[in-house]
Structure formats: structure tokens, C-alpha cells
């Protein structure tokens, strides 16, 4: 029974929609969108069923999908500013309206009477592929793509995607449900399931262009984790017995492959990656890290992407590598800006949990124009307050972000930004730092999967500071202040946040004295490097 429903829904969602409308109680047509959502989300409740739906990915060109095919799209909501759209919920023929179904009226002088009582509105938004999503992660969720690889054409309205010149998909989303407080928020990542069509863009301007449009049947929350979809990971819920060893293996591997064997640096990178915003009201933000004395790419190597970026792309679900240059700063918008009532995306419009690696090596002497200055400022703001101001005419709106920063700097500290931590690299042997992705020695698949699992669970884990530990920390702080007056409250704050992260990476439930001491040790070794 269920399977036939499933097949039907997959093959001809439009027919299912029309059938549903037939059986809908005609007195309660206002509830029809809810009925649709319930019907479809029931069919695809299980992960297996869900993964049956073809996914919209960059691997397949949009034209290869049937018109009105059922697809799912894991997307970042880029823009929610389009006004709601009105549609006729009942067609002349008495059939279902909406979801891209409409009559084409012949307006030859005598206009057919429209029944305004049948008008409903739907929420319109613009969604794009999740920026910075790692290949392995996308594959684990979308499955291997039996790609009918057409030439990837330049998607329309590429200014709506944060990363310039990156292949991506952007679609117009139409949600027919009344959402109330559950309207999608900008930069949020959601799984949209719906019918794919091509429709004119919903704007006020007179020139209309056709854009891919997804008529949403239901949405599904997307949680960062390797639980849904195809299981590339077999160790999902198994309590990791040797988490301590595994953690060390992971650090070793990062150090070996990307950081010239510098273990401490690898540990700091790991800690930075697993941090997230803890509390906005108390401004407990993830720390940002600068790796200083990072060797610059020798001119002979064609690829300026540091190995670290490749390694992180292998480990993290979401990461982004930015090769900074003056030109980039002056030219590329970092902050989303509304121009002519269209919200253009900016490099920093990233979904929560993204780690961004900024390589300063490309910055030469030269002048920063105003946009450059504002871009630098915007990055600093996201680092320190984790909010990004989108520019609108006559006003700015601040949106929360949750982005981790790793800055690679050639000098003794970052030239442009003030990060929470700066760590000089220990062994700058330059050839190791700019390997291509294919040169990286991969660990066995299970180990790699375990690494990924470790990072994701650390990122989503919870940890508290124990009562006795907190007393210990307080005492220690007072003592230290007595001994050395230069110790400030910021030092304490940083030490506690490092301790938390170490605890999380060790899969602890509480920051205990052991963890605290480790954090102090790590911090001490970092400071020693400046001596």
C-alpha cells in the first residue's frame, strides 16, 4: 500500500495533488495546503523513502529533470524579502490551483470574472545550494549521482550565491502552507521537497525572466550530522571506546598532512572547527584562530589553496577556503546588499556551522577602496560578534551567523583582523603546505568516517562546567592576578572557552579539572611560542 503511494508520488506528484483536491472536503479548502503537506511528509517519513526522491544537485543540469518532477533540494535560504504571491486556489475547471497549476486566460477584451474569494497567498523565497558544502557530505546525503552530465550552464541570477563563480543551483521557492512563525529564516538550511517547474520571477520590475521554481509540498529540517540518508558511516551510535586515541590520531593526521607535523597547531585547528555559538545574549562566540608564519605558496606551485583547506573539506561538512587578495577585497561583496529590491548575496552569507579558511598570502601592497574597508570590517564583526549586517536602503538589518574563522597569515599576526588566538607555526617547511587534493594520503575509509563522526558529535555536543572545577578556576585566577597583574579577564574567558572545546573534543560531558589543566597547558605552549 505504502509503496504504491510512494511510487505514485514519485512519478506524478501533480496527479496525486489533483486527487487529493478531489477528495478534500470542499468546505475546508482553506486547509488544503496542510493536507498536502501531511500527505506527502507521511509518505516520505522514513529516511529510506526520503532518499528515494531525486535530489537537485550541481552534478546534474537542471534541464535534465522532467517538468513538474518531484525533487528534493537541500538549500540555504538566501532571501526572504519577496512579497507573498497571490494565486487562484481554484481553477475555472474546478480543479486545484497553486503549485504551478493555473489557467491561462485569454484576455481578449472581455475579462473573465475572477472570484477574488478564491485567492490565496503563498510565501516566496530564493534558495541556493548550501555554500561550502563538502563533496563527501553532499554524497552521503544525496547519494551517488548517476549524472547525465550536461554542460553546467551558468545559473541565472548568480549574484544570489555567496561564492562567486562557483557552480551552484538557485531556485525560487514557493511555500503554500501558512507558516506563521515557522517561515524559513535567511541563511537557514532546509530540505525542500516539491515540484520543479520554470516560472517567471516574482518581482515588481516589469521585465520578467523565467527561473527554476520549486513548489514546495513539504519541508524537512536539516540537522548537521551524518545520520540521515545513505550510511557511509557504520559507527553512528556506537559509543566510541577509544575516543581519546582517535582524537590523537585525528590531530596527528591533520598535522602530518597539512601543517608540517605541528601537533599543537593541528589541535588548535580542530578546536576552532568544532566551536559554535553558545549563547548570543551572553556573547559566548566561537573563537577565531590565526596561524601565523604560515608559508606563502611558492610561485612554482600553480595551486594557491593550502592543503589545510583540502583536509578540512575532507573532514568537515561545511568549509570554505578564501584566497584573499586586494582585488578580491575591493571587488567582491562580502555583505549581502539589497540593490533595486533584490538581495544580492555576499561572501559571508553562510549557513551556520561553516568553517572559513582565509589565506592572506595573496594580499599585496595597494589601496583598499571603500568596499574593501567595509569588507574587512564586516569580517571582523562576524568574528567578534557573530552578526552580519545586511544592507538595505536606508537601514541595516543584523542577522545572526555561526561561522568559524581560521586565518593563515605570513606575518607574526594577521594583517587585517584581530583574532582571539594567534599561533605561530612551528616548522615551516613550505612544500608540505600546498599539496593538491590528490596528493593527500587518505587514512582508511573507516578511520576517515570515524574522524568525521568525532567532529560532528563534538560540534553538536553539550558540555557544562562542574561546580568544583568552577571553584578551582576562580581560585586559580585570583592567584594568577596576584602574581602577574597583566592577566586580564579576557584571558580567563579564553581559557574557559578553550577548556570547553577540549572537553567537547574528548567527548566529555563536563569540564573537569583534568580538561582544565590540559587547556592551560595548551595555552601555555601557545604563549611560549611567542617567546
Amino acid at each position, binding site marked *: 500500500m505504502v509503496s504504491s503511494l510512494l511510487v505514485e508520488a514519485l512519478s506524478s506528484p501533480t496527479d496525486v495533488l489533483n486527487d487529493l483536491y478531489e477528495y478534500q472536503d470542499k468546505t475546508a479548502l482553506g486547509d488544503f495546503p496542510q493536507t498536502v503537506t501531511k500527505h506527502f511528509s507521511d509518505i516520505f517519513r522514513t529516511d529510506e523513502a526520503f532518499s528515494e526522491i531525486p535530489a537537485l544537485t550541481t552534478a546534474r543540469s537542471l534541464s535534465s529533470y522532467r517538468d513538474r518532477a518531484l525533487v528534493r533540494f537541500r538549500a540555504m535560504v538566501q*532571501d526572504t*524579502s*519577496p*512579497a*507573498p*504571491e*497571490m*494565486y487562484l486556489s481554484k481553477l475555472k475547471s474546478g480543479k486545484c490551483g497553486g503549485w504551478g497549476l*493555473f*489557467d*491561462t*486566460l*485569454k*484576455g*481578449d*477584451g472581455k*475579462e473573465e470574472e*475572477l472570484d*477574488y474569494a478564491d485567492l490565496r*497567498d503563498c510565501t516566496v523565497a530564493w534558495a541556493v545550494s548550501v555554500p561550502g558544502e563538502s563533496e563527501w557530505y553532499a554524497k552521503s546525503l544525496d547519494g551517488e549521482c548517476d549524472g547525465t552530465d550536461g554542460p553546467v550552464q551558468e545559473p541565472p541570477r548568480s549574484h544570489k550565491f555567496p561564492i562567486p563563480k562557483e557552480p551552484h543551483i538557485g531556485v525560487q521557492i514557493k511555500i503554500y502552507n501558512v507558516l506563521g*512563525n515557522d517561515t524559513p*529564516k*535567511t541563511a*537557514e538550511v532546509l530540505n525542500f521537497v516539491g515540484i520543479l517547474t520554470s516560472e*517567471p520571477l*516574482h518581482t*515588481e520590475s*516589469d521585465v520578467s525572466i523565467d527561473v527554476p521554481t520549486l513548489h514546495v509540498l513539504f519541508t524537512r529540517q536539516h540537522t548537521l550530522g551524518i545520520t540521515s540518508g545513505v550510511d557511509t558511516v557504520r559507527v553512528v551510535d556506537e559509543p566510541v571506546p577509544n575516543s581519546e586515541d582517535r582524537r590523537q590520531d585525528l590531530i596527528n593526521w591533520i598535522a602530518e598532512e597539512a601543517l608540517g607535523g605541528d601537533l599543537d597547531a593541528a589541535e588548535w585547528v580542530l578546536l576552532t572547527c568544532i566551536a559554535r555559538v553558545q549563547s548570543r545574549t*551572553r556573547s*559566548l562566540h566561537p573563537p577565531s584562530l590565526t596561524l601565523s608564519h604560515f608559508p606563502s605558496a611558492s610561485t612554482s606551485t600553480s595551486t594557491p589553496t593550502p592543503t589545510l583547506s583540502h583536509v578540512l573539506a575532507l573532514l568537515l561538512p561545511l568549509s570554505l577556503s578564501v584566497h584573499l587578495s586586494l582585488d578580491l577585497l575591493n571587488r567582491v561583496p562580502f555583505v549581502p546588499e*539589497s540593490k533595486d*529590491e533584490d538581495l544580492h548575496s555576499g561572501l559571508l552569507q553562510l549557513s551556520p556551522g561553516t568553517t572559513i579558511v582565509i589565506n592572506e598570502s595573496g594580499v599585496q601592497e595597494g589601496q583598499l577602496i*571603500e568596499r574593501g*574597508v567595509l569588507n*574587512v*570590517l564586516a569580517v*571582523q564583526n562576524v568574528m567578534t560578534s557573530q552578526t552580519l549586517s*545586511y544592507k*538595505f*536602503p*536606508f*537601514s541595516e*538589518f543584523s*542577522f545572526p551567523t555561526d561561522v568559524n574563522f581560521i586565518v593563515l597569515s605570513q606575518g607574526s599576526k594577521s594583517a587585517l583582523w584581530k583574532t582571539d588566538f594567534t599561533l605561530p607555526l612551528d616548522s615551516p617547511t613550505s612544500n608540505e603546505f600546498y599539496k593538491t587534493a590528490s596528493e593527500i594520503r587518505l587514512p582508511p575509509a573507516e578511520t576517515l568516517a570515524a574522524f568525521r563522526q568525532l567532529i560532528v558529535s563534538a560540534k553538536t555536543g553539550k558540555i*557544562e*562546567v562542574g561546580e568544583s572545577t*568552577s571553584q578551582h578556576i*576562580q581560585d586559580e*585566577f*585570583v592567584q594568577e*592576578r*596576584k602574581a602577574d*597583574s*597583566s592577566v*586580564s*579577564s*579576557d584571558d580567563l*574567558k579564553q581559557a*574557559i572557552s578553550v577548556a570547553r572545546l577540549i572537553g567537547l573534543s574528548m567527548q566529555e560531558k563536563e*569540564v573537569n579539572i583534568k580538561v582544565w589543566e590540559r587547556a592551560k597547558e595548551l595555552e601555555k605552549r601557545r604563549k611560549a611560542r611567542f617567546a
Partner: protein
Amino acid sequence: MKSFRDFLRGFKPKYRVAHDRSLGIPTKASASPDVVERLLYEGYMRRMRTTGEANLNLDCENLRAFPPSRKLYVQLTKYPQEVIPAMDQVLKDIMLELAEEDQTEGMEGMQGREGEEEITEIMSKVYKVRPFGLPAVNMRNLNPGDTDKLICIKGLVIRATPVIPDMKVAFFRCLTCNHTVQVEIDRGKIDEPAACPREVCASVGTMSLVHNRCEFADRQVIRLQETPDAVPDGQTPHTVSLSVYDELVDVSKPGDRLVVTGIYRSVPVRVNPRQRTIKSLFKTFLDVVHVRLGQDSRLGLDGSTRPAGGDRVPGVGGGVGEEDLEDQEEGLVTRKAEMEKKLKELSERDDIYELLSRSLAPSVWAMDDVKKGVLLQLFGGTNKSIARGGGGGGPRYRGDINVLLVGDPGTSKSQVLQYVHKLAPRGVYTSGKGSSAVGLTAYVTRDPDSKQLVLESGALVLSDGGVCCIDEFDKMSDATRSVLHEVMEQQTVSIAKAGIITTLNARTSILAAANPVGSKYDVNMPITRNIDLPPTLISRFDLLYLVLDQVDEAIDRKLAQHLVGLYLEDAPETGGQDILPVDELSAYITYARSRVNPIITEEAGEELVLCYGKLRRVGEDPRSSEKRITATTRQLESMIRLSEAHARMRFSTHVELEDVQEAYRLMRDAIRTSALDPMTGKIDMGMLNTGTGQQQRKMREDMRKEVMNLLGTSGAGATRGIRWGDAMQQLGAQSSIRVDAGEFKEVINALEAEGLVKVVGERDRRMIRRADA
């Protein structure tokens, strides 16, 4: 329509009062009975007649308040398209009726011929009723159910088109027989006659439009965007289109906040204008009937910085002038009355000063005096202008208080700034590091649409009438900082760029934070050496606070507890229980700034003089005759501003003794921390004003003498000169205190400028020679 007629002829303010009471809205303790009993709208209509105004603003709340017209309110909101034209007609009828009545009664200006003329004029006019006063709904909540209903929304104008001529009546002429036909617009469309209506002719397709005989109305399309306070979390703002007609065109400009009443419309979209197919997609817009320029209490600007008479009076149709405005506000006033009462109650608390300063940045520890200073800055002194001077305006004295915080890193300076930025009316936050001169002042750019040069204002101009918070003040480039000189004293920004020469107003208080040189404050050095800022700029700050990080076990322990507490799962304590929430504090400040303008009493004046004298004498040393400047008139002015601000904070109309005393205390403490000469332990204002203290000046004098001595006496020195390093060394040997290299250089430079010595060579090889040798 009888009910509307009754309403216009019978409405008295007392109905409104009763209505408001029944809804539990506090009303103004109203006025004498004859005010309550007068016939409100008859009065308005008489005024319309005399002023020749054709629009009547109608408060829908009044319709509801008047029992016979209660049903009309519902009808109006549901079927505005039918009801409003009917109302227009009724209005015209009553205008005529009223005019005739007045004529028979022989009212002034309505007798005989004059009256006849008035009546014919009324006959010729088109009267319009412009309803307003509906509860505003959120733009997001507009749904198809609201189509063709009367609604009211608030928002920010982001774009307005030029005036578009909108055809109302089309004029067609037959090409064969020259027969003419007029066709009126019907629901946004004009039907072109397919054939000539004259039976004799009846040729098909010969009717052509004659443009200059058509009738047009002014129309403008405005895009209205949601204001930040209305947007739910994580959402980008929505926009709607407004169509405004006739008198309402050009009332609002981009950047204005509006409260708009209009009819919500949805029309089918023609996908391709050339094809005649219509998809069942719809466009929505608002046909505006009433516009009011909104005032947002949180963004309220300092009224006294604006020219008298307000920015722009909504040319909406006054017709009803001030009283009407008052009436419009009445609804708000009654709703605000409660808040006002609460604020007044607050202001009467004895510890209001402490309460407010405690509520300012509650997450920041201690720093009480700093908070108090910043608090007074938020209230600000009164702006004074010599109104009776030439040309009405006259120069204006600054009432804004500028505060500079200097201190060790990690002492929550930035947090205080951030907080003020959130709180202050028109607060603008900028970091010195990231702000170019452009960002702080104004910038000439070419408008992409019109290709004309336009001025884009930066942070300072934007914060005109507010507070501009500048973090990392010391890291700002010199060029940028120099702009501030003008801003802080003259309160203007002058621009001379790309052919545009202008002076923009930047009447803003500045709250700046800076780090000392070498990031840690050296208590053994005077402040000017600690901050890398030109003394001329430092002296422009009314208050200068040093925020130092001192080691103290008790404080440290509390601090550690506070911080660790943040990471525990429990809610952290916020430094005291009894604090005002941000919006209340903000309302309090806005209210005080807009309503209270304290005047200095005689007693306070005397105290000011006294305190100034005291302040000037602080540095006096009975044992020596040398004069040390501890206070200048700038400090006196600051003190006046501070006392005014303090009085304002108490909602007091007069500056009294206690205000002056508190201002003096703040000034003295701030001076004590900042202008203390570490060598002598004395306060020396000269140090802040010119950068060199009395002591330093004396030292230089001595050094200069010695240098000349050296050059004069030593045999070799007299002829060949003396090495730079050697001179330093020899001086050091003579002196009991260390010879500062910088000081030495200053002295030599001065000597060189006077032409007494010559310096030759580079760096270490520099030789000092007597000029005449």
C-alpha cells in the same frame, strides 16, 4: 449616508473621550466643557471654506466613537471603494448647506456677494474625505482576504518614482467623421471604442486617442519597506507598492517613515504585455487615501537641532491645521500617556540617577563614574542659539557632551560603546580602524540612475542629533581625525569635492574609546604621552575617563565568579536586580531630550561661577608664584552642559544647585584622573590643552639653556659642534633626572627654528652646531 451626515454635523469631542474611556485608554484630563461640546467637524468645514482646502482628514476612531455612525465604520473598512466616494459627496453637500446657513445667519465674510462667491466656489470644487486612524497591521499579515479593504500599514519609503500622468478620462476622435467620445477609466482600464458610435458613420477601428484632450491625474508609485522593528527574527524585510494620487504625490521622500491608510488591491499579471493572456498570478499594491509622516519614538531625534516648524508638514490636506494635527496625535498621546506617567513616576525617585546609571550596560562591571558621565552625555545639554541675532537663526551653541574613554585593553570600553549605540537616538557606531574619512563624514558619488553627483553622508552626518560612537579612536588616520576638530566645536562638516562645496550639519555628541600607547597605561607618564592623540582634539572632549585595570583580590574574585558563571547553565546575575530594560531607558532618555529644556537658575549660576573658580584654583600652589592652568572657559562650558543634562535627567525645568554640584564632581574627578601631572602630582590643564605641562615647559627651558652652554663652552663644541649622542650624554651627567630623548629633540628643534643652532648629518652622525659659528 445619513449616518455620515449626522456624524459630520453632530460629532463632539466628548464622544471620543467617552469612547476612549470605555476602551480603557487613559484620556487627557480634558479641558472645559465648551471644548468638549463644540461641533468638531463643523468647525473643520468652516476652516476648509476659508482656507480653500478640499481635503478633510477623518479619524476613523471618531466614527466609531459616535453612536449613530458606528455601522459606517465597519462599512468604510469593508467597502471603501463604494463608501469613500459617497462620503465625498456628502461632504460637498454639507459644505454647501453649511455655507448657506452661515450666509443666512450673516456670518462674517459670508454676507451678500462675498457669500455667493464662496458658494459658487464650493460648487466647483471636488471634496475628498481622507480617512485615517485605523490600527496599523503588519505588512506580512496582509492576505487575500484584505483585498479591496481599507487597511493601514507602517513602513519606510525606499523608492519613489517621478510623477506619472495617469489617464482618467480618455478622449477619442473618429478619423473619418471627427466625432468625439470620452471614455472614463473603469477599474484601471479604458475600453477603446471598437467602432464609431455615430450611427451615420459607424466605421470600425477609426477611433484614435487624442492625448492632449485626455484628462490626467498625478500618480506616483512608492515602494514601502518594513521597518526593522516589524521584521521577525532572521527574516529580510518585505516591500509593498503604494500608488499615491494628486495631493499626496511628493509628500514623502525616500527615507521617510510613513503610516499609510489605503485600499489593498490585487490585479492579475499580464505575463507579456504584447500578448493578451493573463496568468492567474497577481500583483498587489495599495491605493493610498491618507499618508502621515511617522515619528518613531525610539529613533526620535533631538528636536532642537531641527529647524523650527518641523521638517515637512504633510501637505495632506491639513484644511484643518494644527488642531487636526493635535487630534491625530491625541490617539497616540492617550496611548502614550500611560508610559509618560510611568516615566514621570520614575523621575521622581530619589535614586533615579543611580538607577539609570546602573541600567546602562548592566553587564559591565563597576565603572560607575564612567557610566554616569555617559548617561549625562545621552541626555545632553540644551542647544542654545542667539535667536535674536541677525537673520533669526544666529549662531548656535553646542549642547552636546563629548566623552573620551581611555584605558587598558579588555576593560569593557567597547561594550559600553555598543550599548550606547543601541540606546541612543540616531546612534551610529564605527570603529576607528575601519572608518576612512569618507565613512565618518560625507562622500561625493555619482548616482547610478541620474548620473548626477550626489552627497552621501557618513556616520557623523547620519548621527546628526544623536550620538556617534567611535571605537579604537587612536587607530584612526590623522586625516580622518582632523575632520573631527570641526565637528566637535562647530558641529558641521565642510565638503569641497568634485564641484560640490557645502557644509553639512553634524550636531552630534561623540563617545570615543581609545587604547593607550603600547596598549598598557603607564601611570608614570602624563596622559598626553599615553594617548597618541593631538592635544587640540583631546581638549574638545568634555569628559575624559581613564579606565585602568588594577589588581585587587576582591574585585578579581568577583570578576572570575561572574565570568565562570557565564558558562554555568544558570542564568547569570546582571549586576544588580533593579535595572530598567533597554526600551524603557531609551524611552526615558528620548522623552527627556524632547520635552525637558532646563533653564539655569540664579542660584545655580552662582554655584557655577563658584565651582569654576574652585576648579581654576586647584592647581594653585601657594609656595610658588608660577601659574598653572587647571580650567579654562571650555571647562566652564562643559560644566554648564553637564548640569543641564543632569537637570534634564530629573525632568526638572530648572538647573538647580544639586545639578551643578554633581557636574562639578564629575568634572573634577575626570580631570583628576586625566590631567594629573605625574611629576608634580598636580593638576595641569595645560597638559590637556597644549600637550605640555607646566613642569615640562620649565624643564625644556632649562635644557635649552644647558645646550647653549655646552655649545658655547666646550672648545671643540664652539667651532665644530657637538655630536647628538654626546650632547645627550653630557646633559644626562649634569641632570638629576633622566634626559628624555624626545624632549631633547623638541628642544633642539625649537633652537633650530629660532636659528640659534644648526643640525647637520643623518641619524647617529648628527652634529649640533652653533649657527653663528
